[in-house]
């Protein structure tokens, strides 16, 4: 049975509302991510700080008291612990949501329909991840310092270097996290931890200085592809400058190169996924 459809009253050219500025849409997208982050803050903090804090307790508190490690190990450990927190809080806060949202649920779609150039949707994810990484680092630093007690050579006097290193590290880690999030499928999540993140931590110079790897020269150069190396060494340059560390310009250059590389790769992949 056919029911005649109602004829619309007008066929005149419609007048459309003016376009919303991309900056406004960007802020709205960020608001959404921060809303979700606020709601999940306790879980987020547990997820991102548990592993570094356990390391602090065992390697920065128990082992020195047992006499297995000296005080100088704490000097190497604290910046590394901070680097791991920053790196993985940033990358995980974008990788896992992206894998899920681009996966079976396709729930990223409502943001892909927002009136903003699609690469900016990807950039917003990086900015959100940076914020979360910074929060994790701010939480871990005092806790680690508290548990480990006095740390030889630790200083807060290189504030400028610290700000530069932290911001660049968070950016590089977030871009890396976005790249992982759009490059892997939900079925590959297991590999993410066992084949990518765990080796990154162990070969990220978080628990020993990069210069120490001179004992295995080929490994010392191989690990330079690992973003965590620059984050750890940058933290050392800023927080424990008297201890061995990579020169700050090398750290900055490494982080800049990796940020550009991973941002480009991530946006390229993001666009391919977004546009079917």
């Amino acid at each position, binding site marked *: 049975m*056919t029911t005649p459809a109602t*004829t619309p009253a007008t066929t005149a050219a419609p007048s459309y509302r003016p*376009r*919303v500025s991309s900056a406004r849409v960007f802020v709205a997208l960020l608001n959404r991510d921060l809303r979700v982050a606020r*709601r999940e803050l306790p879980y987020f903090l547990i997820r991102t700080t548990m592993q570094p804090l356990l390391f602090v307790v065992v390697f920065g508190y128990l082992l020195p008291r047992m006499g297995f490690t000296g005080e100088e190990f704490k000097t190497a450990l604290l910046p590394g612990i901070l680097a791991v927190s920053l790196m993985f809080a940033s990358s995980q806060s974008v990788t896992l949501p992206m894998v899920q949202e681009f996966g079976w649920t396709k729930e990223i779609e409502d943001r892909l*329909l927002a009136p*903003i150039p699609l690469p900016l949707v990807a950039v917003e994810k990086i900015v959100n991840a940076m914020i979360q990484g910074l929060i994790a680092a701010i939480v871990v630093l005092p806790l680690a310092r508290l548990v480990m007690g006095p740390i030889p050579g630790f200083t807060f006097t290189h504030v400028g270097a610290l700000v530069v290193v932290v911001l660049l590290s968070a950016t590089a880690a977030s871009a890396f996290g976005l790249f992982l999030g759009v490059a892997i499928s939900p079925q590959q999540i297991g590999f993410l931890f066992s084949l990518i993140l765990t080796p990154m931590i162990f070969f990220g110079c978080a628990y020993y200085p990069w210069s120490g790897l001179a004992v295995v020269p080929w490994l010392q150069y191989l690990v330079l592809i690992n973003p965590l190396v620059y984050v750890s060494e940058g933290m050392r340059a800023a927080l424990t400058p008297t201890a061995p560390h990579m020169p700050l310009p090398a750290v900055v250059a490494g982080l800049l190169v990796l940020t550009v590389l991973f941002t480009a790769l991530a946006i390229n992949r993001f666009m391919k996924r977004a546009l079917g």
Partner: protein
Amino acid sequence: MSLAIETHALRKVYPPAGGAQRFQPSVGPGNHGSAAFAQSGPTVALDSLDLEVRTGEFFCLIGPNGAGKTTTIGILTTRVRPTSGSACVAGADVVRDSVTVRQRIGVVPQRPNPDRSLDAWENLVYHAGYFGIPRREADRRAAELLERLEIADRARLKVDQLSGGQQQRLMIARALIHDPAVLFLDEPTVGLDPQARNALWAILRELHAGGRTIVMTTHYMAEAEELSERIAMIDRGRLIALGTPAELLAQTPDNSLETFFVTRTGHGSHL
């Protein structure tokens, strides 16, 4: 007469997938309505499609599975990039000015894809925020839409706690909250019970009566016949028939759109 949508020689070819096999809808004779694993090779999803949809029109795209309906909607909603040809939606080009197109359209997807990190209410107000609607106004519109779609009592539930039909209504509310000029619905009644389907039809009629352009895909003949002013029938990526329901029915011996569909495509349809 102004046009809400205009496509010219629209073509979409999906490249071969990496690996030995890729999953693709079957388009071979006798295989409509099913899907098959095919050896890798380019898939022509849309082949030189010319369409015009008038402003304020209720337009239905029908065709068997794999005919190119979803690809057409994907291109018109800027989510799929055409291989060649052009498409203009709400006065803007879908490739060159996709941001403007997105500002002016609402999309109800084939499968509900709400933001699962948010509750139903937040799904609406944050989506409104993406379109520059101030929070107070977004709250007002969300309340109105949830009421109208009869899911106001579900507003503060996580979307996973909503039934399939309720999620679909939420998708309709989301598509409408920024008051789009053109509304796209991709098989919106699949999986809905008759009651929910009737409720959706009533909403669509009301929106259409208000002057909104509606483009809907379906493979339910009765739905297309019931709702649309004009129907385009697509098969194997090509437009094979276009007209009002009455015009199409006049071409069949038994006044049945189902018969028309079967005759033109050589395959059965869902009723």
